[in-house]
């Protein structure tokens, strides 16, 4: 086994689904994103979105939750120690393609794209990940390119 096998490079992994209930949308938004279309059904009806929908940051946070729930914690049978996940340096090209409306069930996916050595930290690599999510009609609602540091040496 090598790192490509362990990370399943190029394979899209289903991370499972999450139903966005109206109450949890409002609880998240009241704390972090209290714009009326995320906190109030009536105000949302008259807004640009036409109905209560989740904060875009709520959707990305649930991607992270699903991502951890479906870990890359399979058996490591390669040489050396088992790869150990660290923090993320950031993400890019996040697109909120379609609102996540209250009551929608969203399916999340992850695909590891590749990895390269981290010049500033010997023994660590940066793993590139494509994140996506889809609503019940199959439309893509978010996508972004994530990265995570992995200790491999």
């Amino acid at each position, binding site marked *: 086994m090598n790192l490509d096998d362990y990370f399943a490079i190029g394979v899209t992994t289903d991370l499972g689904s999450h139903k966005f209930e109206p109450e949890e949308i409002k609880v998240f938004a009241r*704390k*972090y*994103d*209290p*714009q009326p*279309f995320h906190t109030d059904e009536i105000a949302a009806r008259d807004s*640009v*979105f036409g109905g209560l929908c989740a*904060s*875009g*940051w709520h959707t*990305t*946070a*649930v991607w*992270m*939750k699903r991502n*951890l729930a479906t870990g890359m914690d399979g058996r490591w049978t390669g040489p050396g120690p088992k790869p150990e*996940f*660290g*923090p*993320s*340096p*950031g*993400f*890019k*090209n*996040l*697109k*909120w393609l379609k609102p996540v409306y209250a009551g929608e069930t969203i399916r999340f996916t992850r695909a590891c794209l590749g990895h390269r050595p981290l010049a500033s*930290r010997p023994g660590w690599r940066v793993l590139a990940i494509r994140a996506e999510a889809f609503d019940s009609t199959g439309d893509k609602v978010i996508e*972004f390119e994530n990265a995570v*540091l992995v200790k491999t040496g």
Partner: protein
Amino acid sequence: MTARKWAFEDFIEGATLDLGSKHVTAEEIVEFASEFDAQPMHLSEEGGRQSILGGLSASGWHTCAMFMRLLCDAILLDSTSQGAPGIEQVKWKKPVLAGDTLTGRSTVLGKRLSKSRPGLGFVSMRAELFNQRGKSVFELENVGMFLSREAVPS
């Protein structure tokens, strides 16, 4: 016309906007992480110390959420915002540790009116969060959509 403070016209290229401050408690770091990002460095001081972050530190997604709240309170809630299509990039540059105080700043990089939707404009910004030692811990670039003052129905 709108009485709101921030419409498309009010964003001036090159201007720097103050987003205010936010004290980050251990309790809220653990609360957010327990729900969304339950990794040891976000759940306890001990777990944080054993990681390369050096102490209990906020999930990067929590930092995004805290940034969003600052942006809402400073600008968006008193604006003609029509949402945002996405985020060009976010850099989690340094750990956000329990007890830190974050201060936000956003610079208007450019703006343009929509060709297809009259009265709608795009404002591109680069925002940063600094900790109490003046170190930049978070950077975000994105484009927000705002109506012009005249385009808002009264």
